């Protein structure tokens, strides 16, 4: 099926070479980091994790969110998601690959990465994170490829794939729960030490991931003959709405506990992020951008009249995605380190090499996604030709 990826129009190749260009620039930046050490980033003794780990955390959520289309389709027999499942699974693959790369570029001694397998440590959450992430990657590759291959031959997928699909549905929340446990079990970091962190992670993931999937589905429909389905997109829009509301609610719970209890350690990170602390306020503008985007997204999503208009839904999804990207991909990690264990403040902002490397990892993710989507869409175009896919739904 891979051969489908080497036939494409002019627009396809321009996009591919654009991504390859970003990757090359980022690769050079990585060589620079590899030679000089992580000192080329904005990280410090006090803020020892930054953009890389933030992006990793955010993307684990995107990967996990594939379950939001797979579950209704396979467990509730919701046929309308039939064409979205492959897009969800392939998005998960691209997201997990990005997660792994973000961990890799964050390592001080990347050549020793296999020590994690050579010296397996069962008390470290990072060990479990490695297992669940690679397992999830494997499951999605196997399931996505097999189901798509069967569809291409217009036969039913083999029977053994169904138990694996059920397993992958149970597996998806585990990857984000384990990722939350990286943070939520650390004593002395009040911002992260909250039992609701994993739940918050899942809520934001199930809002942000499907929001991205809606945008991708709209792009696929615009540029190809394959239509993931109007109703499917609307159903996904409802999922984004509910999960975004739950996410905002969970954030509210955190704020209540911190500010009603008035325990300084619990309030400091929030004050730093949203108002600035002791004159340090570098993150305040972007955190407010995130909050305003969230408010706009919630407003647009809760009214069905607005949500049912696909262009407005797209705007709401973009707002949701970027709001969560700032909140989780940046604020969450940096906020946990400010103030430091001495209640002193060191601020963090990524450097240019760090930004270029981050951009390159995203470009690799999009390259993988483009190739996988190209294959999926080419096959779907052959199988389902009509614009709204009535043929496929009837056939099922």
């Amino acid at each position, binding site marked *: 099926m891979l051969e489908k990826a080497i036939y494409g129009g002019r627009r396809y190749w321009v996009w591919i070479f654009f991504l390859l260009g970003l990757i090359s620039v980022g690769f050079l930046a990585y060589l620079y980091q590899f030679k*000089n*050490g*992580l*000192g080329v980033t904005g*990280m*410090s*003794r*006090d803020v*020892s*994790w930054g953009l890389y780990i933030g992006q990793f955390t955010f993307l684990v959520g995107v990967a996990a969110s594939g379950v939001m289309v797979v579950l209704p389709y396979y467990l509730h027999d919701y046929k309308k998601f039939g064409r979205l499942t492959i897009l969800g699974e392939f998005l998960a693959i691209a997201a997990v690959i990005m997660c792994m790369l973000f*961990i890799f570029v*964050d*390592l*001080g*001694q*990347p050549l*020793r*990465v296999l*020590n*994690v397998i*050579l*010296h397996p*440590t069962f*008390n*470290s*959450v*990072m*060990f479990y994170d*490695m297992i669940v992430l690679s397992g999830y990657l494997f499951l999605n590759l196997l399931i996505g490829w097999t189901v798509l291959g069967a569809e291409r031959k217009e036969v039913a997928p083999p029977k053994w794939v169904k138990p694996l699909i059920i397993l992958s549905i149970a597996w998806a929340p585990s990857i984000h729960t384990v990722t939350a446990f*990286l*943070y939520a*079990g*650390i*004593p*002395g*970091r009040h911002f992260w030490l909250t039992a609701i962190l994993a739940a918050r992670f899942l809520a934001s993931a199930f809002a942000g991931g499907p929001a991205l999937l809606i945008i991708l589905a709209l792009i696929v429909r615009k540029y190809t003959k394959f239509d993931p389905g109007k109703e499917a997109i609307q159903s996904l829009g409802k999922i984004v709405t509910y999960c975004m509301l739950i996410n905002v609610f969970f954030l509210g719970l955190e704020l209540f506990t911190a500010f009603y209890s008035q325990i*300084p*350690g619990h309030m400091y990170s929030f004050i730093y992020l949203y108002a600035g602390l002791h004159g340090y306020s570098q993150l305040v503008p972007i955190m407010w951008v995130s909050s305003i985007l969230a408010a706009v997204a919630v407003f647009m999503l809760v009214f069905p009249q607005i949500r049912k208009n696909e262009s407005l839904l797209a705007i709401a999804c973009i707002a949701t995605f970027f709001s969560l990207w700032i909140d989780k991909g940046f604020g969450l990690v940096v906020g*946990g*380190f400010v103030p*430091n*264990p*001495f*209640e*002193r403040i*060191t601020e963090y902002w990524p450097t240019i090499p760090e930004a270029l490397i981050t951009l390159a990892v995203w470009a690799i993710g999009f390259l993988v996604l483009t190739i996988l989507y190209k294959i999926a869409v080419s096959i779907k175009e052959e199988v389902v030709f009509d614009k709204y896919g009535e043929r496929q739904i009837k056939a099922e």
Partner: protein
Amino acid sequence: MSVNRRDFLKIVSMSTILSIGGVASVSSLKDQVEASQISKSPAALTAKRWAMVVDMSKFTSEADYQRCIDACHRAHNVPHITDNPKHEVKWMWTETYEHAFPGNEDAYRAEKFQHMPFLMLCNHCENPPCVRVCPTQATFKRKSDGIVMMDMHRCIGCRFCMAGCPYGARSFNFKNPRPFIDESKENPEFPTRMKGVVEKCTLCYERLAKGLQPACVEVSNGALIFGDIEDPNSAVRKVLSERFTIRRKPELGTGPSVYYII
């Protein structure tokens, strides 16, 4: 040379059996070899669990702190990074009371205590979070004496331990540390580090093995009291039973082994 199928299978099965046996015998040998390599010197100082008491009343001038810090940093080739405070590496340093014991501030406390510098180092916790989170056991609690050790050759530089430590005791080599070590003061007996690994105080395990007190204790003129906290007759236990002492963030359940007398 041609090998028929039958011979090939014979060779494969024999070599499989041999290699499994080989691995088993090597791994049983490995323990013995390791044990003989690190057999203790008879002069070595030993304890069930090392602890330290910092007697703040004996630190009267800036020089008293600096002497301990310099002894530590010189003994362990700790780089002196001044061009960017974000990349600082320190095993021992000072923090004022309000920062060393956050949450215990009191606006009406006597001025001299408010800003009194306290000597900071790794607490060698009884229940260390850094060890719990490390994915490679590069940082580990030594079974024999409770020292929280650091294997800088195994560390992958993920910095999970730095997030895990509630005492800010860990430093990461954001760049090659070697140019920041004064060659004239370098200790050739202790390894220097490379970029990309985490380091911290290891309670001078290398000096204890030779029967010497930790470098900071040696030069402290009695301000640092060091000993086995599980030995009721040790110097630390004697001080702890007589004087009022405090520890940093004991409420986190880490069981810090560094005590302070104010």
